[in-house]
C-alpha cells in the first residue's frame, strides 16, 4: 500500500454549513467554489504534508458530516485526534453556541486533543461589519478560558487559512518533541503562543 504515513489526525468539527469543507478545500487545493450547489466539495479525508523547521509533518484531515442526524456519533470521529478545528460562522451566532458543545465533548473525552477555534467567512464580515453576529471579544475570552487558539479565516480569500494549518502542524511537531523529552526527564516549559490573526483583524 502506498498510503502516506500520517503523523497526526486533525478533525474538522462544527455545525452544518459553517464552512468546514470549504476550509479544507482551500487549504488543500487553494481554491474556493461558490454557488448553492457546490457547498459539498473536496474529499472527506485528505492527507497533507507541511514543512516545520527541518521536519515534515503529515496531517490526516478528517472532514465530518455536519447534519445533526449524525451528531450522536461524532465522538467516533475525534477519538485519537491530535487537533480539532472547531468552526463557527462569524455571521451566524447560533453556530457559536454549537461550538461550546464540541469543546465540552473534547475536554471530557479527548484530553490530549488540542483545540483550535475558527471563525469562518471573515470576508463577509470585512465587507460589511454589520454582518458580524459573533463578538470578537466574547470569542477571545472563551478561547482564553479553554486555552485554545483563535483564528478568523476566509476560505474565499484564503485569509489565515494556511496560517491556521501551519500552526496546527507546528504544535503537532512540538508535542511529539515534548513527549520524547518528557520521557527523558527534560522539561522545556510551555511555549507561549504568538499567533493572532495578523491579516484580517486590527
Amino acid at each position, binding site marked *: *500500500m502506498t*498510503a502516506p*504515513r*500520517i*503523523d*497526526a*489526525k486533525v478533525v474538522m468539527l462544527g455545525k*452544518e454549513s459553517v464552512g468546514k*469543507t470549504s476550509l479544507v478545500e482551500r487549504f488543500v487545493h487553494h481554491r474556493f467554489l461558490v454557488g448553492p450547489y*457546490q457547498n*459539498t*466539495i*473536496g*474529499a*472527506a*479525508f485528505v*492527507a497533507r504534508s507541511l514543512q516545520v523547521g527541518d521536519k515534515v509533518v503529515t496531517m*490526516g484531515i*478528517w*472532514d*465530518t*458530516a*455536519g*447534519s445533526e*442526524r*449524525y451528531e*450522536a*456519533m461524532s465522538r*467516533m*470521529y475525534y*477519538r*485519537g485526534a491530535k487537533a480539532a478545528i472547531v468552526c463557527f460562522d462569524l455571521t451566524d451566532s447560533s453556530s457559536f453556541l454549537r461550538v461550546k458543545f464540541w469543546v465540552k465533548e473534547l475536554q471530557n473525552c479527548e484530553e490530549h486533543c488540542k483545540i483550535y477555534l475558527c471563525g469562518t467567512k471573515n470576508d463577509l464580515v470585512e465587507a460589511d461589519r454589520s454582518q458580524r453576529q459573533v463578538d470578537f471579544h466574547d470569542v477571545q475570552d472563551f478561547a482564553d478560558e479553554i486555552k485554545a487558539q483563535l483564528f478568523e479565516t476566509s476560505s474565499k480569500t484564503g485569509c489565515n487559512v494556511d496560517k491556521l494549518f501551519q500552526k496546527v502542524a507546528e504544535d503537532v511537531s512540538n508535542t511529539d518533541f515534548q*513527549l520524547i523529552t518528557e*520521557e527523558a526527564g527534560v522539561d522545556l516549559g510551555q511555549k507561549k503562543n504568538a499567533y493572532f490573526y495578523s491579516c484580517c483583524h486590527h
Partner: protein
Amino acid sequence: MSQKSERRGIHVDQSELLCKKGCGYYGNAAWQGLCSKCWREEYQRARQKQIQEDWALAEKLQREEEAAYASIQGAQSQPSLTPFSKFEEKKTNEKTRKVTTVKKFFSPSSRTAPKKESHEGKAPSPSITRQSSIETDRVSRDFVDFLKNLQKPGREIHKQCRAFIENMANKKDLGADELSECVQDFYQNMSDRLMTHFKGSTERVERVMDQVEKYIMTRLYKNVFCPETTDDEKKDLATQHRIRALHWVTIQMLCVPVDEEIPEVSDNVVKAITDVIEMDSKRVPRDKLACITRCSKHIFNAIKITKNEPASADDFLPTLIYIVLKANPPRLQSNIQYITRFCNPSRLMTGEDGYYFTNLCCAVAFIEKLDAQSLNLSAEDFERYMSGQASPRKQEPEVWPQEDAGAGRSPGLTQVYQSLDLLTGLGARQDRVLEGARSLESDLISWQESVEREVQEILEKYPLEIRTPASAIDSDNVENDRLPPPLQPQVFAG
C-alpha cells in the same frame, strides 16, 4: 481379492448407506460417508495431523532460514535486535504505556460476556481446514522470504513471532479483551524495537509490521475471530435482523446523493456492496480494512458520477449507511470487533483506512439507533413500516402497469424477473450436470466390468506357466536367421 470391495466404491447399493467405518450406524455424505460419531473421531485425527504438519513446516522453515542466514553471516555483521522481553513481564508495566491501543478508541465499553457453552458442529469440514492450511503455509513462506532480506534481525523477528504464536496457543481461555491486549502489546513491543533498529525510519518499521500482522493474524485467526467468550455472534445476529427489518428504507429517506438509474452508478453501487461483503472472507485485519476502503472508493465514484463533482463527508456517510443496509454484510459486528482488537493501531487510528473504518462503525451505530426522527418520518409511519403493515413505496404516486409484459415495469420487478430467468437457467444446468454425473458413473461401472472381463479372458486364454529358462537371450528370436553374423574381434598389428 480386493476387486469386489473396490467395485463397491462406485456402485451404489444398500450397504453404501451405512457408515464407512462399519460401525453399523448410517453414514452421511456431509460427513464423508461416516456416521457423526466416527466423523468426529476422524476429524479430530485430521486436525491433530494438521497441527503436526504445521509444526513440521514451521520447523522446516526455521531450518531453511537458519541455513540462509548462516551463508550470509560471515560477510555482514548487522546489529541485531535486543531480545524481546517476555510478554508476561511486559504486561506488568502496561499502565505506563503511552500509546493507547486502538481497541480503546472504538469500544470503550466492550466487556467480555460470561463464557458460552461451546456448540458442537461448529468445527469446519476437513476440506475447509485443508484449504486454510494451504493459505497458512503460503503466508508462512512469504513471511520468511520477506524476513530473509532483513538478515539477522529478520531471524530475530521470526523467532519472536513464533514464540508469540506458541504462547497464544496456551491462552485460549482468555477473554477477547485480554487476547487483544496481548496482540497489541506484541505489536507495540515489536515496533518499539524496530524503531530503534531502523533508527526512527517509521516507513521501514511499518513495512515490517504489516508483514508481522499478516503472519501472526493468519495463524491466530481461527482462535480469535468471534471467540466463544464474547457475545459477538449474538450481536451479529441482532444486526442482521435489524437490517432485514429495515428493508423498506429508501434512498430519499437517507438523503443519499446517488442515482441508480445511471448504469455506471449502479455498477459502482454493486461493487461497493460486493466489497463490504467480501470483508468477511479475509483473515488479516488489514485485508479486511482494505475491503472497506475499496467499498468507500466505489461509493465516492457513485456520488461523483451522480453529482458530477467530488463527494464530501456529508454525501459519503449516508451513502455508506445505504450500502450497509443493502449488503447486510455477514458477521458485521464480529468483523468490526476483530479489526478493532487486532489491527495494527498506527494504521487504524489516523490513516485513510481508519477514516473509512470509523465511518463504517458510525454507519452501524446509526443503523442500530435509527428511529423515526433520523429518517424525518412521523412516529406512526415508522412503526407501520417496521411492523410491515405498510410500505413506503406503495404510497408513491408512480404505479407501474402490471400487464405490460416488461415494457413499463419497475426496475425492481425487472430485476426480479431477470433473477428468475437466471435461476431457471441455473436449475436446468444443474440437471444437466447431475445427468452427466450419472452417466459418467454408469460408464465407469461398465468400463470397470469390461476391463475385468478382458483381464479374465486373457488370463483364461493364456494360463500362467513357468518355462525353463532358455539357453541364450535371443534363442526365442524368430528372425534370428535374418540377422547378420555377429562381429568378430579383429586384431590390428602394430
